[in-house]
C-alpha cells in the first residue's frame, strides 16, 4: 500500500473515479459531479447530537473522508482524520421557510468542492420546530446512490444512539482493485465497440455542448403510465430475469426509441450506470462503485416496440456480462450522448421518525450528455422519473416539452408493444398546436390568373425592355396574340406542351404568354443545353411545337414537330384566347434526376398564379418593380424574374446570353438598372468579388443554394448598406419558392441565413421517417403542403413516392423535399442541407457554411464550396480492365470503358519507348558495379513476393556481388521469411533484414495520411536502403517494381496527353519525382529521421535500376519459373499478398475511408498489360477481409482513430482565391474558427468555382483533392528559444514522437484533449505558464511558447497553486475538443 509522508494509507483512483476525475479536471469550478441530497426530517433535531453522530459515521467510513492529491503521473486519495463544522441555519422565522430552504439549497449545492480538503458538505436547516432538513452533498468521486443511502441509514442509527458495525474500507477496495489480477481484457474489448463505430448524433441535432449547465425537469409519471408499467412488468412477452431487470429493460427500450426519434440515428449508445456492488462488503462500503457503460442498440423506426425490447434484452445481456468493476474505457464513454440511470436505494425513516428524500440537481452535468433520464426508487418503492437536460438545447428546442416526447413513446410501448416506433406522434396537444400555427403561411385568396393580371396593367407602361428596345403592355398583349395565333394555327391545342428553346430576348416574354393563352404549357430549355438533352426533354414532354431561334434551330431539327422562330410569329389569322383552366399545366421545368434522366415537373396555372401573387408582394413590395431577366431559362428561379414584374406593372429587363458560360449576371450589376434581382448565392459571390456598389438595385432574392450570413454582410458592405436581401427557399416541386426570410444583420448572427416562414397559402412541416411532425428543434425532412406542382411528367410512380398523402391531414397532399430542416421555438425554420448528402463527422452534423465562412474571412478568397465525398458501393466496373466506378476522377464512356483504358489505347505504343532491352540492363549493371566502391556491386530490394523473387533470379544471372535487403516490418509472414532466406542462400547472396523501431508508428501515420500501409512501408524501405547504399559505397539499388506499377505511377495518361515525351524526358520526370519524394518532410520521414536524405545528394551517388523496365514477362511465367526452378513456395498465410500480413489492414482501412480498394488501380494496370484477367482482378478486389484480425493488428500498431472517422464522408473545401493566398493561411483560418471534427479533410485551391448554367456550383467539375491534412504538415523548424525547446521536449514526450517542429499543428501530429492536458501539466512543471486549454488555442510549439512567455504569470508553479487553471473559455475549448 502506498503511503503519504504521515504514513496514513493511500490508494490510487479506481477506474470509475478516474473517469470522473478527468472530467472534473476539465471543469474544476463546475459542480459537474455534485451529488446533493435533501433529507427532510420530521422531528426536532438536536444539532450537537447530530454532529456527534456524523463524527461517528465519518470515523467509521474512510470513503466519506476521502481527499485527493493530484500529481503528474497519478492521483492519490487518502482519508485524513475526521474534522468538520456543522452549519446550522434557522429558517423558521422566514416568511416562507420552505422557499427559503429551497433557495439556500439551490445556491449551496452548485458550489464546487476543493477536493484536496473535503469531498462532502453538510448543514442542518431548521424549517419548523418539528421539521428540519439535513442537507448533504458529496462529490461523486466519493459516493453514488447506494452509498448515499448507506450514509443516511448509518446516520439514522448513530443519531438514535445505536452502535455502528465495523465498516469495510474504501481505500482497501481501491487498492485491491489496483492490484487485481482479474482479467478485464475481454470486457474492455467489448466496450471498445465494433470497428467503424461512429459517435452518435447529439440529441435534437444540437452541437456538442460546451457548457455543463443543465436543469432537471420531472417526468410526469402517474396514473395511466404507472398502471401501464405495473401491467407491463407482468407481461410474459416483456420478461428479463427478474422484475427489476424487466422494469429496467422496459424503460430503457422507451428511452432508446426516444433517443432514436430525436437524433434520427439508427444506432444509439446509451450510458447506463452499473452499481458494481456485488458482495455484502461492497454493499456496506461508503464510496463510489458505480461505473457507466454504453448499451449499444440498433433502432429501426419500422419495427415494433416489442422487437426493440427483444434487442434490448440481448444488449442488456452483453452489458451485464461485461459491466465488471474496473472495465470502463474512454472509448466507451465517448460514444455516450444520453444516460439512463436506474437507481434503487431505499431510504427509510430517520431515527424512528418520518423522513423524505430528494436528490438535488446541482445545475450541471457532463455536457456530452444532452439528456440523462433518472428512474429512481428512494422511498416507499415509488418510481419517480426525471430528466436532466443540458441548457445548450434551450435555444433550439422548447424545453418544457421534452419530457412529453419520452412519455409519448413510453406510453405507446406500455399500451401496445406491437406498434411501430416510427408511428408514434411525440408532440402532445399543446406543442402540436403551437407547431401547427407556425407551420402555416398566411391564407391566400384565390388570385386572378396571370394573363388577366398582366392584361390589366397600364397599356403604355413598359412591360419588357432589352437595351434600348422596349415593348409596352399593349404591345406585349398584341405580340402574345400573334404567338397564340401562330401556335394555334400550327395545331397547338389546350393541354399541349411547347418546347421553348432559345436565348433570352425581348420577344421571349410575349412568346411565353402566347403559349399560356393557348392554354398550353411551355417547357423552357436554355440555349446552351446539349442537343441530346434537348431532344430527350422534347420526347419526355411529348411537345407538339417548338419555339426556337437561329442559335438553337439546329439542335431541334431532328424533332418532328412544327417549329416557329422567335421574333417572327406569322399571325395570318388571329384566334381568340382560350379561357384558362386553373388546373391545367402552365409550364414544365426539367431538372436533372439523380439517375441522369431529366425529370419534368409540371406546374398548374393556379400554382403559378399563387406563387407569383405572393412573390410580387414579397420581393417587390407595392407598386411596379423592375426585375432583371438574366438567368438560365431552364431554371425555375427565372420564372420569378419573368412574371413577378409583369403582375406588378413593372418591367422585365432582358440581359441576353454572354457566351457559353453565360455570366450575364455581371451585366445586370454593371448596368444597375432594375429594382429586384433574383440570383443564386454563387452568383452573388461572384458579384461581391467584383466589388462595385449599386444605386438602383434595391432588393436581392437569393434562391437555389444555402445562403450564408457572411455573404449577406459582404453584399451589404460592397453593394449597398440598404440593399434588402431575401432568402427564398423552395424546390421546383413546391413552385419556385415557398418560404422566405429577410436577412437582418442584427438578428441573423448564425452561420446560415434561416429559410424563415412559410409563404402565403403554403404549409411547411418538419417530419420524421414516419411522417410525424417532429418536436421543436428536432431535425427532420422539410415537407411542403398547400401550393404544389402537379407531379412529374410521365413518372406516376415517382410522383406517388414524392407527393404523398398526408397521414396527419387526411385528403391533403404533401411533397417530401429530401431536405433537412428544423423549426425553432421562435417560429423560424432552418435549412440544414440535403438528407442524402448530409455532412456528418463522428456523428456530428457539420454545417458546411461554418467552414465556408471561416475560409471566406481570408483576404483574397473569392469563392468557396464545401463538398462531401461519400463512399458507396461500386455500381459498375470497366468492361475491359475491371476498374470499379468508385475509383475517383476516372470517367466512364458510354460503352462501359474507363477513361484510362480509352486513353491507354491511344498511347500504349508511344509508351513502349520507355521500356528497354536486357542488353541495356547488362550495361547499366556493369557500369554500376564499376562505380561501387565497397564489398557489394549492387543492392537488391527483396520483399519475398513473386515479382521481386523472379527479378532476383534474373539479376543473379549477371554474377555480381549482391546484397539483398528486406524490410522486416514485423508482419512479414513466416512463409515469406522462409522464402527470402532460401532464395538468398540459393543465389549465394548476402542478405540483411532492415529494421526501424518506429515501424508501427510509420504504419499508423501511413494509415492516417494515405489510408494504406504500403506508402509508409515503401518510404521506410527506400530510406533505409539508400542509407546502406550510401554508407557502403554501392552505386545502384535494383527493384522488382512491376510494369503495372510503372504505368500506374509514371506512364500515366496525362503524361501522353499533350504529346509523346522522350525517354530522357520521362527519366527526368521520374528522377525529379524521386527527389521530391525524399525531400518531403512528412510524418514518416520524421519517424525515420530522414533529413539526411532531403537534399537529394544521395540520389546523385546511388541510382535505381528497375529490372522490369528491361525484361517483359507475364505473371504466369513468373509463377511457373518460381515453382519449377526457384526455391520459392507460395505462402499460404498471407491472403492475396504473397509476403505481408498487414496488407489486409491497409485494404480494409482504405476501403472504409476512401471508398475504394487501394489495389483497384494497380490491378487495372495488371489487366491492361495482360498480366491478369478482368475476372481475376474483380475476384481479388472482392476478397473478404478478416475484420477481427484487422482490429487486432490496428490495436497492435497503436492506431487510435476510428477506422471510419466520419461515417465514410470526407469533407473537401474548394477555394478560389487570388494569387498569393496560400494553403497555410486557409488552414490557419479554418483551424482558428472551426471545431476540430468539422475541419475539412482537404482544402483544394482552384482558379474558379465552376458553376452550372443555372448558377449553382457544378460539383461534377470540381477536381479531386490531391492533398490531405497530414500531407500538409508544416516544414520542420527547430526550436529556437528556451521555451520552445522545453515545449518541444514536452510534446515529444507526450506524443511519443522524436522530432516535432515548432510549426507543427498539435492536431495533425495526433494530439487529443488528454494529450493537451498532459502537455499543460508537464509544461507547468517545467516552469512555463500554460493553462490546459492553451494548447487548443495555440496549437503549435512556436505559438504556445510565445503565449507562455507573454503571460505575466510565468513562474514556477508552487504546490499551493493548482497545477492547471481554467476559465470559462478554457472550459469551452476543452469541451469542444473533447466532444
Amino acid at each position, binding site marked *: 500500500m502506498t503511503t503519504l509522508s504521515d504514513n496514513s494509507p493511500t490508494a490510487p483512483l479506481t477506474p470509475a473515479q478516474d473517469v470522473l476525475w478527468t472530467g472534473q479536471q476539465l471543469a474544476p469550478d463546475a459542480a459537474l459531479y455534485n451529488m446533493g441530497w435533501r433529507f427532510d426530517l420530521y422531528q426536532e433535531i438536536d444539532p450537537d447530537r447530530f454532529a456527534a453522530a456524523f463524527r461517528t459515521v465519518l470515523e467509521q467510513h474512510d470513503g466519506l473522508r476521502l481527499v485527493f492529491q493530484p500529481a503528474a503521473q497519478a492521483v492519490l486519495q487518502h482519508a485524513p482524520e475526521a474534522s468538520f463544522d456543522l452549519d446550522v441555519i434557522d429558517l423558521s422565522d422566514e416568511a416562507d421557510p420552505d422557499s427559503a430552504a429551497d433557495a439556500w439549497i439551490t445556491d449551496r449545492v452548485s458550489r464546487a468542492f476543493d477536493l484536496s480538503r473535503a469531498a462532502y458538505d453538510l448543514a442542518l436547516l431548521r424549517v419548523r420546530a418539528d421539521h428540519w432538513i439535513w442537507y448533504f452533498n458529496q462529490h461523486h468521486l466519493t459516493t453514488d446512490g447506494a452509498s448515499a443511502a448507506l450514509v443516511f441509514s448509518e446516520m439514522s442509527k448513530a443519531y438514535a444512539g445505536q452502535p455502528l458495525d465495523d465498516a469495510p474500507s474504501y481505500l482497501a477496495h481501491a487498492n485491491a482493485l489496483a492490484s487485481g489480477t482479474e482479467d478485464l481484457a475481454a470486457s474492455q474489448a467489448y466496450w471498445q465497440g465494433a470497428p467503424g463505430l461512429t459517435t452518435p448524433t447529439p440529441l435534437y441535432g444540437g452541437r456538442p455542448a460546451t457548457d455543463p449547465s443543465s436543469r432537471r425537469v420531472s417526468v410526469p409519471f402517474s396514473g395511466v403510465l404507472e398502471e401501464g408499467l405495473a401491467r407491463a412488468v407482468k407481461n410474459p412477452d416483456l420478461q428479463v430475469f427478474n422484475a427489476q431487470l424487466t422494469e429496467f429493460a422496459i424503460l430503457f427500450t422507451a428511452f432508446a426509441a426516444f433517443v432514436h426519434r430525436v437524433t434520427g440515428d439508427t444506432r444509439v449508445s446509451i450510458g447506463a450506470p452499473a452499481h458494481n456492488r*456485488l458482495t455484502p462488503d461492497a454493499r456496506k462500503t461508503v464510496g463510489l462503485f458505480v461505473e457507466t457503460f454504453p448499451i449499444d442498440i440498433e433502432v429501426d423506426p419500422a419495427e415494433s416496440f416489442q422487437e426493440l425490447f427483444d434487442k434490448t434484452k440481448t444488449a442488456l445481456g452483453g452489458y451485464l456480462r461485461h459491466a465488471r468493476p474496473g472495465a470502463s474505457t474512454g472509448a466507451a464513454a465517448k460514444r455516450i450522448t444520453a444516460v439512463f440511470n436506474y437507481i434503487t436505494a431505499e431510504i427509510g425513516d430517520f431515527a424512528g421518525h418520518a423522513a423524505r428524500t430528494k436528490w438535488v440537481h446541482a445545475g450541471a452535468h457532463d455536457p456530452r450528455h444532452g439528456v440523462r433520464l433518472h428512474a429512481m426508487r428512494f422511498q416507499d418503492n415509488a418510481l419517480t422519473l426525471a430528466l436532466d437536460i443540458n441548457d445548450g438545447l434551450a435555444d433550439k428546442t422548447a424545453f418544457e416539452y421534452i419530457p412529453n416526447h419520452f412519455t409519448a413513446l413510453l406510453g405507446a410501448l406500455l399500451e401496445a408493444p406491437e406498434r411501430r416506433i416510427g408511428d408514434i406522434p411525440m408532440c402532445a396537444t399543446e406543442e402540436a398546436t403551437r407547431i401547427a400555427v407556425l407551420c402555416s403561411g398566411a391564407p391566400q385568396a384565390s388570385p386572378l390568373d396571370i394573363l388577366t393580371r398582366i392584361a390589366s396593367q397600364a397599356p403604355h407602361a413598359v412591360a419588357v425592355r432589352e437595351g434600348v428596345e422596349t415593348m409596352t403592355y399593349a404591345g406585349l398583349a398584341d405580340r402574345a396574340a400573334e404567338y397564340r395565333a401562330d401556335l394555334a394555327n400550327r395545331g397547338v391545342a389546350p393541354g399541349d406542351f411547347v418546347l421553348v428553346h432559345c436565348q433570352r430576348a425581348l420577344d421571349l416574354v410575349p412568346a411565353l404568354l402566347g403559349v399560356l393563352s393557348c392554354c398550353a404549357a411551355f417547357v423552357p430549355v436554355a440555349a446552351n443545353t446539349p442537343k441530346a438533352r434537348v431532344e430527350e426533354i422534347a420526347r419526355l414532354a411529348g411537345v407538339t411545337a417548338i419555339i426556337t431561334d437561329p442559335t438553337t434551330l439546329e439542335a431541334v431539327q431532328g424533332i418532328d414537330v412544327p417549329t416557329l422562330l422567335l421574333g417572327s410569329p406569322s399571325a395570318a389569322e388571329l384566334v381568340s384566347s382560350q379561357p384558362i383552366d386553373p388546373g391545367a399545366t402552365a409550364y414544365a421545368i426539367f431538372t436533372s434526376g439523380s439517375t441522369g434522366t431529366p425529370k419534368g415537373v409540371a406546374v398548374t396555372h393556379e400554382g403559378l398564379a399563387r406563387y407569383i401573387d405572393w412573390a410580387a408582394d414579397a420581393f417587390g413590395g407595392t407598386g411596379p418593380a423592375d426585375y432583371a431577366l438574366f438567368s438560365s431559362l431552364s431554371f425555375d428561379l427565372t420564372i420569378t424574374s419573368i412574371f413577378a414584374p409583369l403582375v406588378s406593372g413593372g418591367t422585365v429587363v432582358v440581359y441576353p446570353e454572354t457566351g457559353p458560360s453565360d455570366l450575364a449576371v455581371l451585366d445586370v450589376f454593371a448596368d444597375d438598372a432594375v429594382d429586384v434581382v433574383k440570383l443564386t448565392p454563387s452568383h452573388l459571390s461572384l458579384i461581391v468579388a467584383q466589388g462595385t456598389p449599386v444605386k438602383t438595385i434595391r432588393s436581392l432574392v437569393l434562391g437555389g443554394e444555402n445562403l450564408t450570413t457572411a455573404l449577406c454582410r459582404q453584399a451589404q458592405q460592397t453593394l449597398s448598406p440598404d440593399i434588402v436581401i431575401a432568402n427564398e427557399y423552395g424546390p421546383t416541386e413546391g413552385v419556385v419558392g415557398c418560404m422566405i426570410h429577410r436577412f437582418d444583420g442584427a438578428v441573423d448572427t448564425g452561420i446560415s441565413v434561416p429559410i424563415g416562414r412559410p409563404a402565403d397559402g403554403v404549409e411547411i412541416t418538419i417530419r420524421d421517417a414516419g411522417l410525424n411532425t417532429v418536436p421543436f428543434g428536432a431535425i427532420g425532412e422539410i415537407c411542403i403542403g398547400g401550393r404544389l406542382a402537379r407531379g412529374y411528367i410521365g413518372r406516376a410512380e415517382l410522383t406517388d413516392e414524392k407527393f404523398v398523402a398526408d397521414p396527419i391531414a387526411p385528403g391533403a397532399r404533401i411533397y417530401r423535399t429530401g431536405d433537412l430542416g428544423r423549426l425553432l421555438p421562435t417560429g423560424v425554420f432552418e435549412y440544414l442541407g440535403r438528407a442524402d448528402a448530409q455532412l456528418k463527422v463522428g456523428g456530428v452534423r457539420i454545417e458546411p457554411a461554418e467552414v465556408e465562412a471561416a475560409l471566406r474571412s481570408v483576404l483574397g478568397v473569392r469563392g468557396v464550396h464545401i463538398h462531401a465525398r461519400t463512399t458507396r458501393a461500386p455500381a459498375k466496373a470497366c468492361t475491359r480492365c475491371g476498374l470499379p466506378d468508385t475509383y475517383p476522377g476516372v470517367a466512364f464512356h458510354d460503352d462501359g470503358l474507363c477513361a484510362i483504358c480509352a486513353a491507354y489505347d491511344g498511347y500504349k505504343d508511344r509508351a513502349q519507348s520507355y521500356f528497354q532491352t536486357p542488353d541495356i540492363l547488362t550495361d547499366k549493371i556493369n557500369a554500376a558495379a564499376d562505380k561501387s566502391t565497397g564489398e557489394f556491386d549492387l543492392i537488391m530490394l527483396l520483399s519475398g513476393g513473386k515479382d521481386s523473387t523472379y527479378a532476383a533470379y534474373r539479376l543473379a544471372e549477371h554474377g555480381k556481388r549482391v546484397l539483398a535487403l528486406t524490410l522486416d516490418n514485423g508482419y512479414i509472414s513466416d512463409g515469406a521469411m522462409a522464402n527470402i532466406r532460401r532464395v538468398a542462400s540459393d543465389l549465394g547472396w548476402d542478405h540483411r533484414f532492415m529494421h526501424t523501431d518506429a515501424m508501427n508508428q510509420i504504419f499508423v501515420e501511413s494509415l492516417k495520411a494515405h489510408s494504406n500501409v504500403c506508402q509508409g512501408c515503401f518510404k521506410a524501405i527506400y530510406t533505409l536502403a539508400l542509407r546502406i547504399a550510401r554508407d557502403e559505397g554501392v552505386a545502384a539499388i535494383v527493384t522488382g517494381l512491376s510494369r503495372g506499377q510503372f504505368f500506374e505511377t509514371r506512364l500515366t495518361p496525362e503524361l501522353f496527353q499533350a504529346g509523346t515525351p522522350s525517354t530522357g524526358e520521362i527519366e527526368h520526370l521520374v528522377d525529379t519525382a524521386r527527389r521530391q519524394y525524399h525531400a518531403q518532410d512528412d510524418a514518416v520521414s520524421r519517424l525515420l529521421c530522414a533529413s539526411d536524405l532531403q537534399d537529394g545528394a544521395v540520389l546523385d551517388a546511388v541510382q535505381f535500376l528497375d529490372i522490369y523496365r528491361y525484361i517483359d514477362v507475364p505473371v504466369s511465367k513468373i509463377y511457373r519459373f518460381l515453382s519449377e526452378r526457384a526455391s520459392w513456395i507460395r505462402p499460404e498465410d498471407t491472403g492475396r499478398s504473397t509476403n505481408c500480413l498487414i496488407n489486409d489492414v491497409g485494404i480494409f482501412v482504405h476501403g472504409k475511408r476512401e471508398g475504394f480498394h487501394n489495389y483497384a488501380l494497380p490491378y487495372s494496370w495488371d489487366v491492361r498489360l495482360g498480366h491478369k484477367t478482368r475476372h481475376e482482378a474483380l475476384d481479388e478486389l472482392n476478397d473478404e477481409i478478416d475484420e477481427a484480425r484487422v482490429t487486432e493488428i490496428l490495436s497492435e500498431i497503436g492506431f487510435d482513430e476510428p477506422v471510419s472517422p466520419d461515417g465514410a464522408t470526407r469533407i473537401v473545401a474548394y477555394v478560389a482565391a487570388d494569387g498569393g493566398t496560400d494553403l497555410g493561411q486557409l488552414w490557419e483560418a479554418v483551424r482558428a474558427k472551426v471545431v476540430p471534427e468539422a475541419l475539412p479533410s482537404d482544402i483544394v485551391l482552384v482558379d474558379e468555382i465552376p458553376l452550372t448554367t443555372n448558377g449553382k456550383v457544378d460539383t461534377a467539375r470540381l477536381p479531386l483533392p490531391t492533398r490531405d491534412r497530414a500531407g500538409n504538415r508544416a516544414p520542420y523548424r527547430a526550436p529556437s528559444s528556451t521555451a520552445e525547446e522545453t515545449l518541444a521536449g514536452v510534446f515529444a514526450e507526450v506524443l511519443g514522437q522524436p522530432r516535432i517542429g515548432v510549426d507543427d499543428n498539435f492536431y495533425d501530429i495526433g494530439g487529443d484533449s488528454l494529450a493537451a492536458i498532459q502537455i499543460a501539466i508537464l509544461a507547468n512543471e517545467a516552469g512555463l505558464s500554460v493553462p490546459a486549454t492553451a494548447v487548443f488555442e495555440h496549437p503549435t510549439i512556436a505559438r504556445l511558447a510565445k503565449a507562455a512567455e507573454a503571460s505575466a504569470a510565468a513562474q514556477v508553479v508552487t504546490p499551493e497553486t493548482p497545477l492547471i487553471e481554467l476559465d470559462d473559455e478554457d472550459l469551452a475549448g476543452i469541451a469542444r475538443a473533447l466532444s
Partner: protein
Amino acid sequence: MSDQTALDPKSMIRDFIVSKLLNGRAIADDENLLLSGLIDSLGVFELVAFLEKTFSIAVPLDEVVLENFTSVATIEAYVAAKKA
C-alpha cells in the same frame, strides 16, 4: 487453481459464490440466493461468466432465468445438463 480443478462442480460453484459474491458467508446448497437478495442481477452475470470459463459451456441469455440460478443445487444441475 490446480487444487480447485480437483473439486467437484458443486463445490467449485459454491466456493465461487461464497468467496466472490458473499465475502465468505456460508450457504446451504438449497438456499435461495436470488429471492433472499444475496445475489442480484449483476452478481448472476458474474456467475455466468465464471460458469462459462470454468466449465467451458456457453450460457445463452435466454437460459439466464430464475429457475436455473436459484440455488447452488439448481446451478449445478443446470451445468450438468449443459455438459451432458
